[in-house]
């Protein structure tokens, strides 16, 4: 008996192995448009991501290539410097008594002359503070006028050392290049931004529901909220905040009717299930009746063979269902300033943590929403990675305008149905205002 069972199994297993039947030609004609449509979405998102990345990289490369060693920290000459000067950088101002104008050379005196000078009560002596570095050693040529200037100043008209001297007693001329006024640096920034978002959910997996749902399309979604950033250094800041993201998905060709509750005699928490790429829609509204015009996505005991909504004269509502998902987002982002001008450019990257707070499904009855139920099988917690290019236009010391094209990829699946994984991508252009304090 067991052998016979095995025989019949083997007969079919071996007999059908490698068996081939040519499919009708129209199958390929139906497949092609579906894959073309999906490829257009993916190509659009890839292009957006590439553009963002390319622009960021180009600005970074440009910025790095333009960076020179700071001319203010380096002397104009780089050889024999300590043979000429006592100290390269003035530490303390030194009291130097200069000779009367007919004896002195322009702007400085030698050390020996300084040592031999009489006390401060000598009337023939003018008193001036001169930085020690400005004092040449004996026997060396007086080159202070040219060598002690920052390199950027060489080529400018020569000026006396006293004019250079920031410590000169009554000298009204203070060279701003020698000593810049200190500005208060606002390290904190409060930002309010929002953006329409475009989501795409390519599925993957080889489980019970490998993910292709050609009768679904993403709806325009949005994200907005308030962020706070702290300036770690001149170029780098860290940013966080709280955002709300609303994501929509349209499931086409699911026909909905109202007024079903008077025909429903069953007990249970839902009458209809609809299989979608985001999860399984469970009806919560006992008054709704659903049927699938294009396939077998609706699972119910009230199939068309059991109950006909048209014969029962149920009012028709809509041909699509709309899934709505709301997430609270907490981003942790790093912002690197690439260009610091009237319009700043920043490279922005980091992670966002998303908590599911809203999950509804509705149909449209005219202009009104008709609640249907909710989607089961969603991940309550999502982590996404972000890459963006921030542009910031400074209006005044405190306020600036921001524009941030941002690409996001969700690292963990949007939902788990069997072994299917759906990791969405999103692209949006955030705009808003920021306030520095």
């Amino acid at each position, binding site marked *: *008996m067991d052998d*016979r*069972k095995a*025989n*019949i*199994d083997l*007969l*079919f*297993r071996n*007999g*059908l192995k*490698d*068996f*081939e*039947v*040519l*499919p*009708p030609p*129209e*199958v*390929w004609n*139906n*497949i*092609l448009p*579906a*894959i073309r449509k*999906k*490829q257009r979405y993916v*190509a659009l998102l890839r292009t957006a991501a590439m553009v963002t990345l390319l622009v960021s990289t180009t600005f970074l490369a440009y910025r790095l290539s333009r960076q020179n060693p700071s001319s203010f920290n380096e002397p104009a000459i780089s050889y024999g410097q300590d043979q000429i000067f006592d100290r390269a950088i003035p530490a303390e101002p030194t009291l130097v008594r200069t000779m009367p104008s007919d004896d002195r050379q322009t702007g400085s005196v030698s050390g020996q002359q300084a040592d031999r000078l009489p006390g401060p009560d000598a009337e023939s002596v003018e008193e001036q503070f001169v930085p020690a570095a400005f004092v040449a050693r004996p026997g060396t040529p007086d080159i202070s006028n040219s060598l002690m200037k920052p390199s950027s100043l060489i080529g400018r008209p020569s000026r006396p050392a006293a004019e250079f001297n920031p410590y000169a007693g009554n000298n009204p001329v203070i060279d701003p290049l020698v000593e810049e006024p200190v500005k208060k640096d606002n390290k904190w920034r409060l930002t309010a931004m929002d953006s329409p978002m475009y989501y795409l959910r*390519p*599925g*993957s*997996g*080889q*489980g*019970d*529901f*490998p*993910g*292709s749902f*050609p009768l679904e399309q993403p709806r325009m979604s949005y994200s907005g909220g308030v962020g706070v950033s702290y300036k770690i250094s001149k170029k780098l800041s860290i940013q966080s905040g709280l955002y709300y993201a609303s994501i929509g998905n349209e499931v086409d060709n699911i026909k909905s009717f109202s007024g079903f509750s008077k025909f429903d005699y069953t007990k249970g928490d839902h009458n209809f*299930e609809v*299989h979608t790429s985001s999860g399984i829609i469970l009806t919560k509204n006992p008054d709704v009746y659903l049927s699938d015009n294009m*396939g*077998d*996505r*609706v*699972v*119910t*005991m009230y199939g068309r063979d059991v109950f006909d909504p048209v014969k029962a004269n149920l009012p028709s509502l809509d041909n699509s269902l709309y899934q709505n998902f709301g997430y609270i987002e907490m981003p942790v982002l790093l912002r690197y300033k690439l260009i610091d001008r009237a319009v700043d450019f920043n490279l922005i990257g980091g992670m966002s943590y998303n908590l599911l707070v809203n999950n509804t499904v509705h149909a449209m009855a005219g202009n009104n929403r008709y609640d249907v139920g909710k989607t089961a099988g969603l991940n309550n917690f999502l982590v996404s990675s972000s890459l963006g290019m921030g542009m910031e236009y400074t209006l005044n010391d405190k306020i600036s305008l921001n524009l941030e094209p941002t690409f996001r990829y969700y690292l963990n699946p949007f939902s788990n149905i069997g072994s299917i994984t759906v990791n969405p991508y999103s692209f949006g252009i955030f705009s808003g205002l920021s306030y520095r304090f």
Partner: protein
Amino acid sequence: MPDIKNIIKGCLAGNRRDQELLYRRHAARLYAVSLQYSGNDDEARDILQEGFIKIFDNLVHYKNEGSFEGWMHRIIVNTALEKFRGKHNLFRVDNIDQIQEPDADPDNDDYSGLEASDLLDIIRELPPKYRMVFNLYAIEGYSHKEISRMINISEGTSKSNLSRARAILQKKVNLYTGIRKSAVNG
């Protein structure tokens, strides 16, 4: 003839010629699988169509581990399962406690006259739930435990359905071979 890796690469790049090549190369085998899981040609066409769309969508996730044909085969089977569940999920599958199987007929152990197309016709005549359990168990090699999870029935029901499917198939095979033998002899 282009290597399958190059064809996959071309498909991922959106090359229409490679997409069609992939389809032409594998459609006939996968259509036979679709027919094996469906009761009518329309359903088989839908399974093949939806299955191939999923194959193209998921090519990016194919890791070159294991047979590519096996990977596509699983997607087609899963598509058939999805359709089956859509139709039968909430309906109770009857338990069949005692199935009287036909007695063995030693004369009928010779099935050499049966062709693959005959076997396909026989299997497609099974009721959907028997066909699904038989395909998953006898052809794909899944256990009753796995099948029970896949199509939301108990293990006992899976066993009963298999037993019933085998009995029906045995009868039909006997009938086919008997007809062929009598045609040859007579």
